[in-house]
Structure formats: C-alpha cells, structure tokens
C-alpha cells in the first residue's frame, strides 16, 4: 500500500507551495486585525452599562463565530485551490507519469491526495481556530468556542470541497474544474441565504430551493451546524444567525447527507481516474 507515501508527498508539496504560504500569511494578518477588533469591541462592551444578563458572554461568542466564519471561508478557498488541479493538472503537465508507472494503484494516488489535502486543512483549521479562541480568551477572559464538533464540521466542509474538486479533476483540466467547483460552492452559499429568507417569508418554494442547494453541496450546511456548535449563550445564538449561520441549524440528517456526498464524489474520482488515459 502506497497511500501514505502519496499522502505525505501531497502534504509536503502543499506546505512548500505558495498557495499555503499565502493563506498562512493572510490568516496571520487577519488574526492580528481580528485581535485588535475584539480588543476594541470588548472595551466598548464593558463600557456599556446594564443590558440583559449574559450579554457579554453572548457578544463575545458572536465575535468568535464571526471570526471563525472567515477562517472557514479561507479554508474552503484553500481546499479548492489545492485540489482543483491535483489529478488532471498533473497528468497534463506530465508530473504524474513516472509515479503512476510505479507499483502504485491509481486509487492509492487519489486517496493519498485526498488524505494529504485533508491533513493540510486539518492543520490549517486546527491551528488558526485555536489561535483565534486563544486570542478571544486572552483579551476577554472568556473561554468560548463551544464543543470540538465545531472545528470538525468546518474540516468536513473543506473535505466536501476536496472530494468535489478531485472528482472534477479526474477528468477536467484545472480551470474549468475550478469554475465548476466555485460555482457549486457559491450556489450552496446563496442557497443558504434563500433558505433563510424563505423561512422568514414562509415561502415553501424558496425554502426548498435552499434545502436542495444544501443537498447538492452541503458545505454551507456544515458551517451552519458548526456555528450552532460554536455559539454559546442563549439569546445571542439567535443573533449569530445573520450572515454567519442559520437561525435553525440543519438536522442530523444533513451529516448523513454530507458523508454520502463525500463517498459519492470520492467514488466518482476513483472510478473516473482509474479509467483515464495518461
């Protein structure tokens, strides 16, 4: 079995590539800005007298969820950028020829890349989310961030995109594949908004369009579940709906759909890549 060789190779490549360096620098800069924002926000919050009990905790939680939403977005973009040319792009460039001629199964190449990118994103989300929770804790003295399920759901969202991009990459060249994956990603985002509006307006059609988009690409739904896990504190949970999450998070069924989705995209990637000519 050579899956682990390909996985570590992929991880090593990702670490040496500019995309990751750029994402790391961007995230670092973002975290600094974020820290400054939280510091001022928290100072203003403390100057506000009165208000309902639990206001401070709720607002801090809201600030954290908002910050993690941005990290989730960066992670998603990174996931797509890393994996969008992973198969076809390499076949077209010729860099995979010598490797695929080794005693390595095609499936090991696909799975190795999937595992490698997933590890990469796990490191990215793990480190940046921890730093963010740490920043909030140091500034406000509040340890928020809810359960560990939150970051895992964020990772799952990125894994869905990796699966999708690998499926496309088994046949399509990087550019068309990237266009398709980002379009689907955007569809899921917009679908989430439509779903919320449909919910408010009690429009069944809009609501169903939203649900359909979540089934098509469950990335947004994963974030909605993640934000429900991350947000702590009673009524402010409602507030965190807004742009950062759904007012009523998706049911557990969505998790099942997400795993099915992943199995389907990976299955397709394996099958299509197995059959393709170099």
């Amino acid at each position, binding site marked *: 079995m050579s899956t682990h060789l390909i996985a570590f190779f992929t991880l090593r490549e990702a670490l040496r590539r500019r995309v990751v360096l750029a994402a790391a620098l961007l995230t670092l800069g973002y975290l600094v800005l974020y820290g400054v924002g939280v510091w001022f926000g928290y100072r203003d919050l403390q100057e506000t007298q009165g208000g309902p009990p639990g206001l401070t905790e709720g607002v801090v939680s809201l600030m954290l969820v908002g910050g993690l939403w941005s990290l989730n977005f960066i992670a998603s973009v990174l996931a797509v950028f890393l994996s969008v040319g992973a198969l076809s792009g390499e076949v077209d460039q010729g*860099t995979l020829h010598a490797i695929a*001629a080794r005693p390595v199964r095609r499936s090991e190449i696909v799975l190795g890349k999937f595992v490698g990118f997933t590890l990469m994103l796990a490191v990215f989300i793990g480190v940046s989310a921890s730093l963010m929770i740490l920043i909030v804790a140091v500034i406000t003295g509040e340890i928020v961030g809810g359960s560990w399920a939150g970051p895992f759901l964020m990772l799952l969202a990125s894994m869905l995109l990796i699966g999708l991009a690998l499926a496309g990459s088994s046949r399509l060249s990087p550019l068309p594949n990237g266009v398709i994956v980002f379009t689907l990603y955007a569809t899921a985002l917009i679908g989430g908004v439509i779903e919320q509006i449909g919910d408010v307006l009690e429009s069944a059609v809009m609501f169903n369009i939203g649900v359909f988009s979540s089934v098509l690409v469950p990335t947004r739904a994963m974030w909605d579940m993640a934000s429900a896990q991350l947000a702590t504190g009673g009524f402010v949970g409602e507030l965190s709906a807004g742009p950062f999450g759904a007012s009523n998070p998706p049911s557990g069924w969505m998790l099942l759909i997400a795993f099915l989705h992943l199995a389907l995209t990976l299955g397709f990637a394996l099958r299509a890549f197995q059959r393709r000519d170099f």
Partner: protein
Amino acid sequence: MSQPAAIHLSGVSKRYGRTLAVDDVSLSVAHGEVFGFLGPNGAGKSTIVKMVLGLTYPTAGEIEVLGQPVGSLAARAEVGYLPETFRFHDWLTASELLHFHARLARVPANARTERVPDLLELVGLKDRANDRISTFSKGMMQRVGLAQALVGEPRLVILDEPTSALDPIGRRDVRDRIRELGERGVTVFLNSHLLSEVEQVCDRVAIIDHGSIVAEGKLDELLNAQEIELRAGEGAEAAARKILGKGGVRKVNGRLRVRVANDDETARLIRRMVEAGVPVYDVRQIGDSLEDLFVRVAERGDV
C-alpha cells in the same frame, strides 16, 4: 523460447476519437534485449510505451509485461520508466525525487541511502543533489529522470527519447549506460529519433509508422537490403525492371538507382543487363544506413 518475453503485445490498437494512433501491433521483446523503437513524429511510439506501462488503455489487444498482465503491481515494481516529457515535481530536490521513487519502487531504506548518491553521480548531478529541480536546466532534468528510471534496479527499462535534451557528452553517457544495462541482462526498450543512437546500442529494432510496424528485425538484417547506383547505356531502366521483375528502380541525376537484396542479386543484375545488350559502365554501392531505411520507410510506407 520457453521463457516469457519481457514485453509482449498482440493485436494492440489504440484509438483516440477519430485518430487510430496504434493499429493492430504485435511485438515481442525478449529478456535481456536492447530494443530500439523508431518512427516519425506521431507514429504511435509513446502511445505504445504508455500502454505497456498501464498508463493508457488499449482499445483492443493484449499486453504482457515480464510475464504478467499489463498493469500488474508485481511487474511494475521491476520496471523503470523515463517519460518523454521528463517533467517531475520541481519543488523536490534531485535527491528527494530519487528517494521518493525508490520508496515507491519498494527499495529497502538502507539500499536507498546508498543508491541515490551513486545514481546522482552516475548521471553527473552529484554537485546538484540538494538543489531543487525547479533550478535545473532541461538536460539536467532529463538526467535526473534517467536516474529516477534506474533507482529501483529494474529488470526492464523503458526510455522514451532519453537524450532529446542532452548535450553530446550526455548522449554518449546515456549510450554507455544502455550498453551497460544490456550487458547486465537488463531489458531496455528505447524510443528514439536518433538513429545513430539506436544503431550503436540496439540488438533489434522496429520501425513504426502511422500506428503500424513497417519493419522489424535484427539491425544488420534490416540494413542488408541495399541500393546500387549504375551508369549504363540506353534502355537500362527498362531492362533492370524486367530482370528484377519488381519495383525499387528509379532515376537519380541521370543515373539508375536499384534496390537489391544482396550482392548475388547485384551480380545477376549486371550479367543479365550485359547479356541483354545494355552496356554497364560503372557500378557503385550506396551504403544503406539506418537513416536511409528510416526515411524510405517513413516516406513510402514499405521497406
């Protein structure tokens, strides 16, 4: 021959959309043979190589490699391949690339640490072992590619135009390496445009054109068919055609060029022409080189 061939193709075809890249090719390469595969651009050489490696799937036909069906992992562990494009992950250093391929080829760790520096020295990249491949020139990339092909100590080495980017010294080095491999009993399948290269190292060659094999055999046998140039009197052309009863007769600069199978045929031709009353003033043998053969085959589609 009881031992299975190193490479065996039977009735292999490959169609890309409307192009028939490979058309019903059958071919055997014996163990330990250094086999040259020649043909003009687009003839189907690389396509055949990729099918032998299991990178591309044939539309029809059967392929066996080292006695195993094509694509078998056991066979692949004993094959080394230098792709035509010799593009590698250029964020790796030369040494890292070789280590990675050695691991993929299942070379044990202690053998790897010895073999990698040795191979880098062999291809003249010892000083650049720890430089990233992205900083390499084309020829250096091809050299590291050759080292990569040899890193698993393969029993079968498949080289797709291994010297296309090399300087004359590099080409000579590669020829020497191929000869060495041949002497050690390693089977070499060499795709090349460089006829001198093939002439110098190969035991047997095949020429492919438009997806079909148009000539195959031991080099000296293939080159045995030769051409002679005659300066002769009136009616020489017609007489030669009548005597030989076949084609291969043409006029070049007022002289007659005739293709003959061997010296006996030359002697018979001249005697019969003289008997027929056509004076022969001068006969010259035109040395047939592999290049002549290649050009002839590629231009006319026959030998």
